[in-house]
Every structure is written in structure tokens, then in C-alpha cells.
């Protein structure tokens, strides 16, 4: 049994580690999404964490745990002055503003000669091991689980559903929004720092718009209503190339077809499981009956 597990790990270790980091990123987005904020800045925060981590390790020789933490702290520090003005925006406008921030960060890194300019940083020592990643992930899942029925958890859910009504309940909407934005940035920064020490290089183009969208796809595919959703989505999308590899005999090319496959998965989920893959677990025939009953009741109540 243990032998089989070991064999599985050695065969898929890269996948397991990258999947773990992607799951952490997905959770970083969950915090803002659970509060009703569509922020796409987390890829940039991840980049800030990666650069901070790589530079502190290579130039300042800080101990690894401190380096990881510093990546999160610097990303969170950047998020405060960004969040205060930007979080006044809603929906797609917030998304556009945060995409703008992401581009600014990317272009800054490309032009930052101290950190290798467009080539990025090469030869980052490999310090991240699988248990670092999964320790962080388990801690985050625990926090999300405890957050669920807490004062802050209820407030986040309330803000997502109706900001003005939340404010009249005594909920400080702005403070909560900034807090979840900063928390998301912190987590993304940690993920970035862990990732930099996992794959030797830090490339400025890895923290751009397409990564931001990837993170969003993890959350959407997995489902945003439960914190485990983004993790499931991240695991599936990360494993997609390896799943595709099983079908090479049918003419599937794992590399080029990856984007196509994840696009199809996203489309199917949005069409048939709007609450994400986690809603499969909750699906039972009676649920359908219940929702129909609710619909008729609402129709009867009238406008």
C-alpha cells in the first residue's frame, strides 16, 4: 500500500506539487470571491511574492520560512494602498482595474534590471518540498472551515448578497472588503514564493493576465460557494494535461490541446453546474423537487 503510494508520488511529484500551489492560489481568490469581489490581481500578488522570495534567498540569504512569509507580507502591503481606492468599484469594473494593476506589475518586473529584466531570475535554489505546500494548504483549509460560521464569515456572505443591507446591519463593508483583499494578496504572495523555490526560475510573464484567468478558472470550475471548490478545480485543471496523456492513442496532443480541454471543461461546468464541481456532491433528486417547490411558491407570491 505504502509502496504503491510512494510509486504514485515519484511518478507524479511535479504534478502534486504544482497542483498544491495552484490550490493555494485558488483559495487566495476564494476570499475575495466569497465577499462578492471579482479581483484579478492575485497573479500579480503571486509575482510580487515570487520576486521577493527569490531575491531574499539569493541576495540576502534569509532563512527559507522567513522568505516565504516575507513574500506574503510584501504582497499584502501592496494590496492595502491598491485596495482602498479600487474596492469602491464593483463587478466587472473592479476586475478591469485589477487587471490594470497586474499589467503594471508585470511591466515593472520586465523593466527591473536588478531582477533580471525580461529574462527574470534564474537559478533560484530549490527549497520548497511537497510538505511545505501541503502544510500551507491544510492550514488554509482549516482557516476557511473555521471562517464559515464565524462573525467574519457571515459578514462576507452578507456583503456578497447585499452591500447596503449589510451596512445597515452594522457591518463595516469597506473594512471587510479591504481585509479579504489583503488576505487574498498575502496567500497569493506565499504561493508565489513557494513556487519560485520549486522550479528554479522566476519569469515575469508567468504572472500576467493568463495566470490571473487560470486562477479564476480554478475557482469557477470547482465552485465558489464552498471553500473546497477552488481546491478541487485547481486539482482538476492542473491534472488535465496528464489526463489528456492517457488519450494520446486517440490523437490527442497533451500540450497544445490543454487550453482547448480546459476551455471545454469550463464551458460544461458553466452550462450544467453553475455552482461548480462541488455541487455534484450535493446533488440529490429531492433537491430538484425542492427548487421547483420554491419556484412555484415565488411565482404564487407574485411581484
Amino acid at each position: 500500500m505504502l509502496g504503491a503510494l510512494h510509486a504514485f508520488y515519484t511518478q507524479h511529484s511535479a504534478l502534486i506539487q504544482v497542483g498544491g500551489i495552484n490550490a493555494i492560489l485558488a483559495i487566495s481568490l476564494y476570499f475575495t470571491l466569497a465577499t462578492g469581489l471579482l479581483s484579478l490581481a492575485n497573479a500579480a500578488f503571486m509575482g510580487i511574492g515570487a520576486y521577493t522570495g527569490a531575491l531574499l534567498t539569493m541576495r540576502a540569504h534569509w532563512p527559507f520560512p522567513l522568505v516565504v512569509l516575507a513574500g506574503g507580507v510584501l504582497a499584502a502591503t501592496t494590496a492595502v494602498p491598491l485596495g482602498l481606492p479600487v474596492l469602491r468599484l464593483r463587478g466587472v469594473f473592479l476586475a478591469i482595474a485589477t487587471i490594470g494593476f497586474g499589467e503594471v506589475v508585470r511591466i515593472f518586473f520586465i523593466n527591473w534590471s536588478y531582477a533580471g529584466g525580461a529574462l527574470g531570475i534564474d537559478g533560484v535554489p530549490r527549497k520548497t518540498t511537497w510538505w511545505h505546500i501541503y502544510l500551507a494548504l491544510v492550514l488554509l483549509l482549516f482557516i476557511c472551515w473555521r471562517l464559515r460560521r464565524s462573525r467574519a464569515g457571515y459578514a462576507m456572505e452578507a456583503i456578497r448578497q447585499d452591500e447596503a443591507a449589510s451596512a445597515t446591519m452594522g457591518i463595516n463593508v469597506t473594512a471587510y472588503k479591504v481585509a479579504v483583499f489583503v488576505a487574498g494578496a498575502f496567500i497569493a504572495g506565499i504561493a508565489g514564493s513557494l513556487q519560485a523555490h520549486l522550479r528554479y526560475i522566476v519569469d515575469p510573464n508567468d504572472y500576467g493576465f493568463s495566470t490571473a484567468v487560470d486562477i479564476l478558472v480554478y475557482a469557477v470550475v470547482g465552485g465558489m460557494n464552498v471553500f473546497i471548490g477552488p481546491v478541487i478545480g485547481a486539482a482538476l485543471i492542473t491534472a488535465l494535461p496528464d489526463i489528456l496523456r492517457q488519450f494520446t492513442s486517440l490523437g490527442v496532443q497533451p500540450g497544445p490541446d490543454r487550453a482547448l480541454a480546459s476551455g471545454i471543461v469550463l464551458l460544461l461546468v458553466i452550462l450544467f453546474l453553475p455552482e461548480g464541481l462541488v455541487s455534484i456532491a450535493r446533488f440529490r433528486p429531492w433537491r430538484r423537487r425542492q427548487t421547483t417547490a420554491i419556484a412555484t411558491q415565488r411565482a404564487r407570491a407574485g411581484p
Partner: protein
Amino acid sequence: MAAAANDRDRDAARPCRPLSGALPTPTLAAEGIARTMMPSERASAPTPKETASRPLLVVENVRKAFGGVHAVESVSFQIEAGHVQGLIGPNGAGKTTVINIISGLLRADGGTIHLLDRRIDQLPPHKIAALGVRRTHQNIRLFAKMSVLDNVTVGQHLLRRETLVERLVFAPRGRAESARLHAEAEALLARVGLQGRARVPAAALSYGDQRRLEIARALASHPRLLLLDEPAAGMNHTEAAALGELMRDLAAQGLTILLVEHNVQLVMDVCDRVTVLNFGRVIAHGTPAEVTRDPEVIAAYLGTDEETG
């Protein structure tokens, strides 16, 4: 001299006796009220005699324009502590705008609003809520996807003291608090007639039940001033009468209520005083009987002789 004035404020600041009705224990409710008050107000003992003569809310010359439309033009009125005060007027008179301004969702263009001696017209809505002002909405604004019970739980936001750190380490205090607030929420639901519906999504409730749930959610943190914006809309006679009874009940326990309502019968039955608005101005103020005799009020509702004749 300043100290003396402060003492008077403290006494006046306790208009609310606990909402002990169906709540688990009076002390808990009282504790909840104390928490929503200013620190300086906590220590004093209640003196209901004095509070009866002193207005809880004073609205002075409040103005609000939307573009060129003067929704509210210089409105002034007061609400005595423990009273149910009606705010009526034809459609477009500015009633909802006044409630939005008091609760902080809108900022007035001018004028002042005082809650006891605290000026509140410049405060953000969550701070006004923390001072004990809660409201319901004309167009129901429940958290539709949450259960009925969770809606009330969100309403208890100001009562909950458990920090996230305490929750992460499973501090026993938090568990006790959750159990207490849960019992209180269930009692509150029973009080407004929603017992047994706690687990239902709020969106699945009937119109009248949604209005009752909004009231329960507003009461959840033991406010001292409750602003009700057309709470009886969509209710039948029996339901409206039950709602009126609930309001009298709450007022008897020290809650002050501002009631915006089109159901004239309900206003006449429930209100101690009525303020009548028309075109953003106060045109009459008095007891329900006085107001209904006022020629200007009759004109506003039915039109003047020249117009009709």
C-alpha cells in the same frame, strides 16, 4: 457644569428596557442592548420617567435633492423615546428618502440629525447601526440565498464578540456565545411568527413572511430605534393587525419606532404621533386624530376644492 450635562445624557440614553418578550432571558437581552450603546452610557441605571419626555431622534431642516428634484425640502420632526411615530404622505412625498438619510444610506445635502445628543447625519451606515438604529426596506432586501435563521444571525453581527483567533483555537467562549445567539434568534423568529421556518431559504418565504423576517433581522441586535419602511405592504388585514400588535408590544418594552406606511388603519391604530409629509415638507404633526382633521392633510390626500371642483 459639563459633568452635570453628561449625567443627564446618560440617564436619557437608556430609553430601551430589554426586549424581554419571547427572548430567552431578560438579562441577556439587556446585555445586548448595553453593547450597542456608547461606552459612557453603559454604567447608568435606567430612569424611564425622564426618558419619556425627551426626544430620542431629532431631525432638523434635512434637505436632499436628486439632480433638480427636491425629494426632501427642509424636513424637521422629533420622535419621543418609546413612541411609535407614523410618517405618512402621498407617493413621492419623500418618506423613504428620510428613512434612507436617517439610516445613513443617503447623505443629506443639509440639516442635522441627532440621536440623543449624538449627531449622526455624517456617519456611515454601519456606525449608525452600531448606535442602535436599525431599519427594514420598502423593497425587501433580505439575504435571499441564506436561510431564514442565517439572516437573523447576520443581524446579530453587532452582538457577536468571538474573534477569528478564538474561533481558530476553538475557544469555549465562542461556542457558548453561538449557542446563546442561536437560541435568541429562534426566539425572535417565533416572536414574528416564523417558527419552524428557520432552515428555509429566505427567498422561499411568502411576501408577508419576508417582511416579518426583515423585522426579525432588524431586531436581532436589540436596537433602540427601528425604522420600518412600509412593513405591512403585501399583507392582508389579519397579518397587518398582528404586525400592529407586535409594534405596540415592542414599544411597550421601550423600543422607539418610526413607521412609514400607506395602510391608514394600521397607522391610526398603532401610532402615538403622526408626521405628514407632502412634496418633501412636513405639512402636519400630531396625534392620529388631529392629523386626520387637518385641512392641509385632507387636501394633500384628496385634492383641494379648486382642483376637484
